[in-house]
């Protein structure tokens, strides 16, 4: 309808899920990503002697960062236990809580096994831990999918984006921790570049295709690409995705370790910015 303007209304909710939730997504990407990459690093045979311990401890630390911000985001944090006492198994948040609790227990077990140098048992348990890490990575797509009101989060590519974020965050973290020999570092660099490249392609496809889905999706893409979140979103894409793709394309003899570390750090920053913009954009528009 032409010239239709809201002239009287209440203030709408604004941003309900803010940066605490972004921290949850971002830290979880690191926590699960390092475990998702570990089997391939172990196959390289030139792994660092403390690789198993590093992965388990890193995963444990970032998983607890995830849980810390999850609980902090609750308006009634001291009722967190209700999730287990009054479970709704239809809710992705509830399933996620059980999954992350299980994963937390497994990271502690794996860290203990690595500390005690029980590598054989560690490697035997690894496939199981990998499956839980995979599930913990992708359940967030289900969580966002249940947010019926937020069309931007319903993209069918959301599962792929969660996995790619974990690959990107996991490889960047392991590059920064410098665990693994030259072969492992090369592999991590390739994973970082590939994850960034594929993820960037999906984001660009969303930007092009979303406006055709609905007026709301088109408006959200406008907010991200040329509206109030432009700096956050485009800046994040450049730091976290474009720069790693370019860095990986540099011939290996010209790749300075310090440069690689900087690229890894930037990709983690960029990932946070993009995730945050993607999270808050649908909350900026009134639903009714």
């Amino acid at each position, binding site marked *: *309808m*032409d*010239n*239709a*303007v*809201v*002239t*009287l*209304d*209440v*203030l*709408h*909710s*604004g*941003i*309900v*899920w*803010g940066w605490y939730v972004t921290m949850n997504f971002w830290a979880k990407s690191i926590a699960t990503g390092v475990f998702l990459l570990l089997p391939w690093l172990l196959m390289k045979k030139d792994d660092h002697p403390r690789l198993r311990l590093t992965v388990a401890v890193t995963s444990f630390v970032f998983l607890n960062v995830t849980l810390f911000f999850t609980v902090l*985001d*609750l*308006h*009634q*944090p001291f*009722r*967190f236990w*209700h*999730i287990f*006492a*009054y*479970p*709704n198994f*239809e*809710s*992705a*948040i*509830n399933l996620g*809580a059980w999954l992350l609790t299980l994963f937390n227990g497994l990271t502690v077990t794996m860290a203990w096994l690595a500390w005690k140098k029980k590598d054989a048992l560690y490697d035997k348990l690894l496939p199981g831990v990998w499956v839980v890490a995979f599930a913990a990575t992708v359940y967030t797509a289900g*969580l966002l999918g*249940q*947010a*019926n*009101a*937020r069309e931007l989060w319903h993209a069918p590519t959301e599962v792929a984006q969660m996995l790619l974020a974990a690959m990107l965050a996991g490889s960047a973290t392991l590059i920064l921790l410098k665990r693994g020999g030259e072969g492992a570092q090369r592999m991590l660099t390739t994973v970082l570049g590939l994850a960034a490249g594929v993820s960037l392609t999906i984001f660009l496809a969303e930007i092009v295709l979303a406006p055709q889905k609905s*007026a*709301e999706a088109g*408006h959200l893409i406008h907010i991200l690409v040329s509206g109030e979140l432009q700096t956050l979103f485009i800046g994040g894409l450049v730091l976290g995705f474009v720069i790693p793709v370019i860095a990986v394309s540099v011939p290996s003899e010209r790749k300075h370790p310090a440069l690689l570390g900087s690229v890894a750090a930037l990709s983690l920053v960029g990932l946070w910015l993009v995730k945050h913009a993607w999270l808050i954009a649908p909350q*900026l*528009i*009134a*639903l*009714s």
Partner: protein
Amino acid sequence: MKLGFLVDLDLCIGCKACEVACKSENDVPLGAWRLRVKYVDFGTFPDVKRTFTPMRCNQCENAPCAKSCPVTALHMLDNGIVNIDKDRCIGCAACVMACPYGALYMDPETNTADKCTFCAHRVEGGLEPACVVVCPTGANIFGDLDDPRSKISVYKNQHADTRVRKPEKGTEPKHFYTGGGDVHLDPNASVREEGFSLFNYIGKLEKIGGH
């Protein structure tokens, strides 16, 4: 029994008596609303009109808020009302994210989610919701959708233009409107410019619940 609501938008005069009655009946705190009446002006001078649209929870048959609630705080009563147990709510706001109608809010006093419950406490005692009682034009029609002789069922059958908000979301709302157009029901059909408008400030809440 399946309780539902119908608003005849041709009868609504935008007096906001329903909004005030709801606030009073349910002790809805400042900065929160279970029911609101939105004004949208449209057209080109001199051919302009003002629309009034009361909006409340749609008590969806397929309620996304109840599905996403991790602790079953949001649950359906036998009469079809989607109720909330505030003592169980953990304040995760998943329901706020899920509701396509923006009908849920974080109560700044209890730090839990809350919403319109069709005045479930009054209904239980045989009374009508507060907003129905105060409406001076009878624009708010409340009753049992399962009873073909109820006022709401008869009204629904007599008005071919009965519609719900965002049917594409598949939530099966039990809140209907007659007499309205897209400007009334579709938020994308009007511009919502932040800043001072004709009557009040159009904007966003800075503080959500206790955060």
